[in-house]
């Protein structure tokens, strides 16, 4: 798929742009000087790929990039209204999703680079880094050339970018492990979250393990998705809208208890607003029982026994 001369150019341009010189493995022959002039994937910043926004679709973009020997300047999702971005600026190419090609690329990544690399790509696909698809394509190309060791090459801009995105995703997952707040609605636990990255697939295993005897649902209002679980079965499904409508007395009682606990545990002479916001940014506050005032605040408390 990717011949040696092509690789050499990637290597060359990379060296120019980052100043990093790859160390050659001992005993490997030096490439001939005229090899640089042979057919190479063109840096084509005015070319845009449009795909359907699925993981398979992105894999097909990788396939197209290798077969056509080009690196598009933009990869965007084609919406139902048609191509939404500035079509006039780019020479557009629509990528048709074909499962056989996607499977071939997936298998290629798995065989030639390794399973961990594939997992990383899958994770980043759920993250919200800017220019996700382009960055992933460049990252995958580097992966094909240098193998798993590319993950250690943080000097490189693309690798660093992608790994940073991966880290941010991991951090948000960790935050949501803690910040999901369930309410008991007739024996079923329901929670609403609003995540930047698409975290539901990643927090699923943790919650399914922890509450394996419960029925529960976690609704992500930003991605319009819900994680639904009943003992032994778990799935992530699209969901248009969801609001917790009824709150029982029992549920209200524990909310009030929790709010009061939260207020009591603070050491007042050590109050530190900046520190709290650093660890618990304000975008999470809407989903936290102890930080929301409306409805069942402490003043509404009427004799809890």
């Amino acid at each position, binding site marked *: 798929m990717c011949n040696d001369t092509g690789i050499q150019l990637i290597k060359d341009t990379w060296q120019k742009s980052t*100043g990093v*010189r790859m*160390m050659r493995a001992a005993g490997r022959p030096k490439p001939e000087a005229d090899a640089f002039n042979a057919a190479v994937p063109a840096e084509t910043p005015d070319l845009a790929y449009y795909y359907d926004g699925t993981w398979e679709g992105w894999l097909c973009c990788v396939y197209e990039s290798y077969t056509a020997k080009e690196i598009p300047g933009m990869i965007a999702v084609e919406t139902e209204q048609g191509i939404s971005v500035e079509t006039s600026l780019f020479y557009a190419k629509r990528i048709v999703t074909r499962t056989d090609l996607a499977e071939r690329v997936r298998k290629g990544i798995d065989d030639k680079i390794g399973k961990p690399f594939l997992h990383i790509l899958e994770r980043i696909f759920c993250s919200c880094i800017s220019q996700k698809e382009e960055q992933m394509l460049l990252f995958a190309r580097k992966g094909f050339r240098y193998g798993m060791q590319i993950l*250690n090459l943080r*000097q490189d801009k693309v690798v660093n970018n992608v790994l940073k995105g991966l880290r941010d995703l991991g951090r948000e997952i960790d935050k949501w492990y803690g910040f999901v*707040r369930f309410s008991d609605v007739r024996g079923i636990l329901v929670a609403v979250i609003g995540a930047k990255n698409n975290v539901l697939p990643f927090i699923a295993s943790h919650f399914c393990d922890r509450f394996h005897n419960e029925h529960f649902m976690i609704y992500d209002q930003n991605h319009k998705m819900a994680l639904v679980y009943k003992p032994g079965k778990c799935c992530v499904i699209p969901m248009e809208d969801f609001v917790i409508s009824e709150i029982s007395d029992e549920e209200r009682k524990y909310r009030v208890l*929790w709010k*009061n606990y939260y207020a009591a545990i603070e050491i007042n002479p050590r109050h530190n607003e900046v520190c*709290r916001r650093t660890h618990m940014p304000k975008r999470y506050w809407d989903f936290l029982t102890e930080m929301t005032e409306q409805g069942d605040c402490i003043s509404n408390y009427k004799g809890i026994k």
Partner: protein
Amino acid sequence: MDVLEKLKILADAAKYDAACTSSGLERKGSGFAMGSSRDFGICHSFAGDGRCISLLKVLLTNCCSFDCVYCVNRYSNQAKRAAFTPRELADLTWQFYRRNYIEGLFLSSAVWKSPDYTSEQMLKVLEILRYEYQFGGYIHVKVIPGTSALLVEKLGTLADRISVNIELPSSGSLEKLAPDKSKEKILLPMKQIQYKIQENRQGRGRFGGIQPVGKQAAKIQGAASSGNRYLLEDKESLNGLRCMEMADPYALKSVDGGQLQKPWKKGQMRFAPAGQSTQMIIGATPENDRQILRLTEGLYHQYQMKRVFYSAYIPVVEDNRLPSRETLPPLWREHRLYQADWLLRFYGFTASELLDEKNPQLHPYLDPKCHWALRHPDVFPVEVNRASFDELLRVPGIGTESAYRILRARKLALLDWDGLKNIGVVLKRARYFLLCKGRSYPFLSHDKNAFLLAMMSPKERALFARQERKWFQPSLFDNFSAETDCNKEGAEPMLTVPALDDAQKEALECVTIPVFS
């Protein structure tokens, strides 16, 4: 009194315990009705003081028969008293856990009637949770000094982490401020817990952490082979346990006397799998940082603590044996001690390296690592592409994570300054101590003031400018609007820094700038 009222009083009384961590133990939830434990620890919320809320941290009761001077719960203090029944507390934990408010329970207590009576009540809570509800979440339990060994062992089999507070950094202070507690009463259960953890690990056929070596290993081996539950040879520390006849601590009796189902299989029972920790109060007594750090180091090495927590003393009661009520909590000192603690645990420093008799206090404006580096110019510079892991760890601006990344990255390509930046090294500090491909940082300033500024964080600089401008050269602040910074962050009147003593002033003035051509 209803549960809400009790929760308010008992959470309020428990808040001075610093530890609220739930890390160090990975356990699947499948063996339990509900609950699991993650080794990275999960923070469920952050209180207004910025501290993590991970566990439901309450006292079982604040009715106390001790009279520790520094404590808000001492019997001579006028305060509202309350006590949970074991059932109430277990239910509360269960319901909070179910709603994902908490990661588990942190159970402590004042001394009600006697240490043994209180421990029995605490044990009941744990039994209801573990046996009856089959609760798999994290449980941290505090041992009250003076509790009998059997009860400590029972608590340890049900809890994940168990801790005994050392309270004050010296036995003299302890005698003065906590007349009912003594060094022996505190250290004895610590030693017992440590041996029990080791024995339990060996019994399960694997060592999760540090393997005991030499004399210690022989002792444990001997104890295990002779069937002794405790290491009876150790006369000094385990004097009280010598002749004690041990009942089977694993015999399960419920609170009502009925037989209960064990949540784990035989042989899988773990004793305090997340280890033990301790806590001491800083600033209530005159010990210096050197003594505290040496004590900490001893606790890590001899008692195999997972963590030692420091708690800045907050004056809650008036007493002539204590600092006055107006004294601000020494938060800055606490922060420095934690920094030094990290250096002990993760960076391979020893207490004697960080502080010696000439410098008994940690520097208020330079973090302990920077301060060490300034006193050891002979070690630097180090070449990034060749230095060993240990050498890299000692460079200010390089942490454990970036040191690992450097090791991995330089296998693939030579590192340069831009690459270091991408890796996450704090070049502002590290550039003075590193060489890249044999060269020092381009256009590195030889100015002493610039160098000192680079060593300080913005907060440290602001404090420095506010407090020490009388004796330091004003040129330091020409390009630096410390005053405005202070005003902007005016919300921190709490942060008081001890004035520099002569040794520290001298250290700042004689700084040798490690600039290398």
